[in-house]
């Protein structure tokens, strides 16, 4: 009985912190990419990507060597798109790779501004 209760609690804890790729949803906004840091299942899955910010963004996924795995097109403010990926177990960087200039000529680099997130994909 005690073992059963322990296993239940453990499963509950794991379920709270890890999502499957099919359930993964990432929101793009200025200064951040919101979404899970851990994905439980590797393989071909589809992410839902939504721009919740004021400006246009993209989502680019690179592996730990910098190789681009997948990328969305331009996602306008308020729009949502999907991204189909085939991920091996490992660590990936999800980021927005838009660079622009403001009216005073200052560069606005979305990656440098915080729009990146490291995501671990389990076996």
């Amino acid at each position, binding site marked *: 009985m005690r073992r059963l209760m322990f296993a239940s609690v453990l499963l509950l804890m794991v379920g709270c912190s890890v999502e499957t790729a099919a359930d993964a949803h990432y929101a793009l906004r200025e200064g951040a990419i919101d979404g899970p840091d851990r994905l439980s299942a590797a393989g071909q899955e589809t992410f839902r990507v939504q721009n919740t910010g004021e400006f*246009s963004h*993209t989502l*680019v996924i*690179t592996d730990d060597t*910098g*190789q*681009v795995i*997948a*990328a*969305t*097109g*331009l996602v*306008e403010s308020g729009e949502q798109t999907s991204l189909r990926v085939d991920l091996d177990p490992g660590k990936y960087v999800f980021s927005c*790779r*838009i*660079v*622009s*200039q403001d009216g005073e000529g200052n*560069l*606005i*680099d979305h*990656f*440098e501004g915080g729009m990146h997130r490291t995501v671990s994909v389990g076996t």
Partner: protein
Amino acid sequence: MLAGVCAALTATSAIAAIVVQRQSTTPIGEGQVFVADAATAAGMIAESTDPDTAVRRARNALEIEAVSLLDDQGVVIASTSGPLVGEPAHDQLIAAAASDHRFVAVASSVDQDLWLDGVVQWPAGSVLYQVISPLDDGDGSVMLHYDVSRLLSRRAQPGVIQSDAIQLLGLAALFGVFAAVVFVGHARAARRYREVAQESKFLRSHSQELEAANKSLDKARHQAEDALALAEEKIRIRSEFVLMINHELRTPLTSVVTGAELLRSTELSGQERALVLDAMVADGARLQEIIDQILAVARIENRGLAYDLTEVSFDELSAAMASAHHAGVSVLPGESLPEVFVRTDVGALGLVAASLVDNALTHGADSVAVGCSTRSQIEPQLEVGDRPEEAVFITVTDDGPGIDDEFLPRVFEKFEKSSFSSGTGLGLYMARMIIEALDGSLSVQTSPAGSVFQIALPAVSVRQRAVVAT
């Protein structure tokens, strides 16, 4: 100091290496790369009148995937990727930037194939970076096409040690080695300095000990020399004493023996016999006197003096001195001072007075006067013993030839006598010993007209003092 400077340089170099490494390995944003590349491409396009040539030169210079030239509507008018010419910018952000003359870069999948040198290199769906930068003259924009993966590889690789950092680390190591060498050298020098300081300290200490030892040796040498001189002096005195004894004893003894033989072997008249006997008696008395003095001095030296101290008044002392006078000696009348008392041995004092009188008569005085007073009668040329603060004085004044200046300092010494003296050299010495034992002093003042010996005795009670009438 030098080691510290080297250590500081080492630390500075190491810190600089760390800073360089951190700066070199910190991922930079693509924006700076894009701005620089776009400026290069724009410059080439501005220099050339042929857009097609300009975009090719820019692509080759920048070593990127493609360079295109867009008009204000976002339509490609020249490109190193032929199929793009005449096509509008598909990306909405790119198109908006072209029309608004803004800078923008977007990494995303392209909608159409990208040709490079007539070959499809990046098919539609590939992830490319498309950068658009307005030209300075406001006439269109330049668009750069990057492969995102290759673009990222252009960034500094975290974990890769940069050459500048390696050089700085080498410099730090060099300074470190130099600092270590200097430090070791300094440590050795410091250790040697401490050793030398300790040796110097030891030598100083040893030198001080040697100096003290030398002083001690010098002192001992002086003492030894003094002792040797004293021993030599004693030997001399003893030799002289032996000679004196030989002379002083043999002379009267020979006279006695000769007189006795004369009486035994020669027929003498009664008058002659009486003369011989008188001479023998006189010589015998002389012998007895000498022997008595020698024995008295020896007894005093060996056992000290045994005194019979009594408190006598000044008047009693004057009377006692008068009784100690010798034939031919006149005693000066002293003032009567019944309130002055002296604690002394009157008998011993009488012997001293008698000795001083005999000494004067022996050395050529015709008259000798003995007097008592409460005030000093002379300015002493020589004084032995400690004169009491409150004293009674006894003076022995003669009219002899005086004491030779050379002999005067030794007049109270044992066996010392002037060259023409017939005495034993013990009389004044014995007088000195007795007076010193009585806590008094003995002094002398002499001149060719005569000498004055003065005894000063402590007055134990002076109730009245009067001026001495001489």
